């Protein structure tokens, strides 16, 4: 595949791996967080951590948008899906995410009309073709996917479609990062910045990380060479005592972001005062709701949504795992109350989350550390 294979060249990868090994101080341990789930996926898919020296550790961040949706929110979605006449649409990844007693997939098996879509526009298309039913779209994702929800809503409004609404669970990336950075026991040395989010918001929103917290950020692309190069750039900043935002993903990310997308977001959404994150608790101004101008498309206003808060078990320590304070196996519920089949926290929900990966590949992962 042209323009893709160039970024997957094994020989260039080996060269970068050698440069990285040369850039680290042997006696020092480095913890670098990749913020975005897309990077976690690339690291897993290409075996990138295998190409790093043993004293460079990657910590998977909070940037998997399905995994951070709390149980109560899934329960609310299931309640909507059970409303008579409702067609409940969502992305495929969302179907398996556990609520307090079941997932949307279970609700579907129980008779709710839950349909997987690939884009909010597909949900709108269903609304057009089934005017006697009401179509709810469960909108999730960071600033990356929020613009497509915004554009869908603008179109629905322009067309005067009345049987379509959005259960808005879009979240924003900066507040959870801030929450992590505020923690006094944080043990992270740098951040691989979220390239897709930055495509929309630009590089500027990440400048507080080096300015206020003294940690380097490198906004990165998603191909394996991108990720390796970004790690090298972070290590070089650390080595020279530097901390700033660098943009490795210049071929896609403009410094100022995408103005048209930002305008659409500003028109359709407002910030929620606070929002609950699975495993991380409430974080203020970390999520989006529909603005007054789009109130008629807000599922939470059109239907009575239970809005019950299902507390994460107290013993869940996702926050500590994410901050790199503890290892997955040090969490009190790891492997007992919290397993991939019955996940409690975000780190176990995602197959690539730190806990799920450790659960599935623990001994293998540790052998690699020993080698």
């Amino acid at each position, binding site marked *: *595949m042209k323009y*893709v294979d160039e970024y*997957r060249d*094994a020989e260039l*990868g*080996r060269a970068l*791996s050698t440069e990285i090994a040369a850039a680290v101080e042997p006696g020092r341990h480095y913890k670098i967080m990749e913020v*975005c*789930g*897309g990077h976690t*996926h690339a690291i*897993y*898919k*290409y*075996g*990138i*951590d*295998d*190409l790093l020296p043993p004293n460079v550790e990657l910590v998977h961040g909070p940037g998997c*948008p*399905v995994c951070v949706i709390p149980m109560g929110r899934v329960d609310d979605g299931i309640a909507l899906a059970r409303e008579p006449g409702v067609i409940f649409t969502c*992305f*495929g*990844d969302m*179907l*398996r995410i556990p609520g307090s007693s079941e997932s949307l*997939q*279970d609700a*579907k*098996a*129980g008779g709710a009309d839950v349909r*997987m879509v*690939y884009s909010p526009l597909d949900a709108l298309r269903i609304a057009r073709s089934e005017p006697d039913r009401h179509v709810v779209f469960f909108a*999730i*994702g*960071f600033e*990356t*996917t929020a613009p497509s929800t915004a554009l869908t809503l603008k179109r629905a409004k322009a067309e005067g479609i009345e049987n379509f609404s959005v259960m808005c669970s879009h979240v924003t990336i900066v507040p959870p990062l801030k929450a992590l950075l505020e923690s006094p026991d944080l043990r992270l040395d740098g951040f691989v910045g979220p390239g*897709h989010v930055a495509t929309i918001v630009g590089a500027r929103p990440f400048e507080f990380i080096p300015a206020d917290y003294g940690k380097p950020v490198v906004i990165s692309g998603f191909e*394996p060479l991108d990720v390796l190069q970004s790690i090298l750039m972070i290590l070089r900043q650390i080595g020279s005592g530097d901390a700033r935002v660098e943009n490795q993903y210049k071929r896609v990310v403009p410094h100022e972001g995408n103005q048209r997308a930002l305008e659409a977001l500003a028109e359709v959404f407002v910030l929620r005062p606070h929002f609950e994150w699975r495993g991380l608790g409430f974080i203020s101004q970390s999520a989006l709701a529909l603005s007054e101008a789009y109130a008629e498309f807000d599922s939470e206003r059109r239907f009575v949504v239970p809005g019950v808060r299902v507390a994460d078990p107290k013993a869940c320590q996702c926050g500590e795992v994410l901050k790199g304070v503890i*290892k997955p*196996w*040090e969490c009190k519920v*790891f*492997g*007992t109350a919290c*397993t*991939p089949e019955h996940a409690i926290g975000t780190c176990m929900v995602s*197959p690539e989350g730190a806990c799920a990966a450790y*659960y*599935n*590949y*623990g*001994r*293998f992962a*540790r*052998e*690699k550390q020993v080698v």
Partner: protein
Amino acid sequence: MSDVGQKPAVGREERILGIIETARAKRPRFKDPAITMSHGAGGKATQTLIEGLFVPAYGGTTLEAMGDAGAAGDMVMTTDSFVVKPLRFPGGSIGELAVNGTVNDLAVAGARPLALTVAMILEEGLDSGVLRAEVEAIALAAAAAGVEIVAGDTKVVERGHADQMYLATTGVGRPDPRGRLAPQNLRPGDKVLLSGSIGEHGTAIMLARGEFELEAAVESDTRSLWPVADALLEAAGPGLRCMRDATRGGVASVLNELARASHVAMVVREANVPVDPLVAGAAEILGIDPMYVANEGKLVAFVAPELADAALAAMRAVDGCEAAAEIGEVRTEPPGMVLVETSFGGRRVMDQLVGDPLPRIC
């Protein structure tokens, strides 16, 4: 590890890894309150259903072995059902699939396919032309595979209670004396051979459903695997340890099942796995790994190392298997796991599929 403060922590990690391994080694128990789509996807949920409900209920040593087919006296039997949508797709149709699917389960068990039965569940209102076309497809595929259709059954259900037509075929074959195939035969050092490029059937079906607004000329690979199984038995004889057809869940699921059943590890070299560029492109866009995508005419064979070259040459001489390749080998550590050496040079675990292989959103 001289730091005394570290010791309890290491002990705890060891203990927790032990708990996890004990839990994983246990036969899964089927506790789900209802059947969901993931029970039919060929991954973990399917395995739990089979190992946790069917096998304990039916019992029997043949079933315990959980092969693609089982011994029945001197013969080998298997059965399969077909609910594909759409009925016709580039490269094949449900009728052709119903014959080849069952023929292939026999072939990879090392049995020459002899006869099939065909059961049909038809929806009220099904167009006779559609039925006629599938009956012809069944007849043609059976003739091509050299099997006779010896019995059948027909049921009709009310409109809306089935999607046009479902098929079920049962097959009987004669064990081929040249080989003795069983998962327990796998030995460290055995080579993993694959009969051709992967992911074509699943990709063709996904594109034929028209849900992606994506077009590519990908055709299903449905075909009888007896010719290539025959060639392998001839070339490797008892050096042919085991075969599997890589249908639902793809090559990744087959390797995981065998690694677990045989308590061995496997290493796959991703760069050696043949994937058609169109399939690779579609998988890239959809965020799917072709290793997990269904095939309907590809087998994975495990062959003693000294016979691997001869076996590979014999495979490549078979029509439709020109792209056959050696993709990896059997190892001892870590038992039950499949590792991949990625094209990029890293290593990772290739796990069992959990649920359907759905496209990612970011």
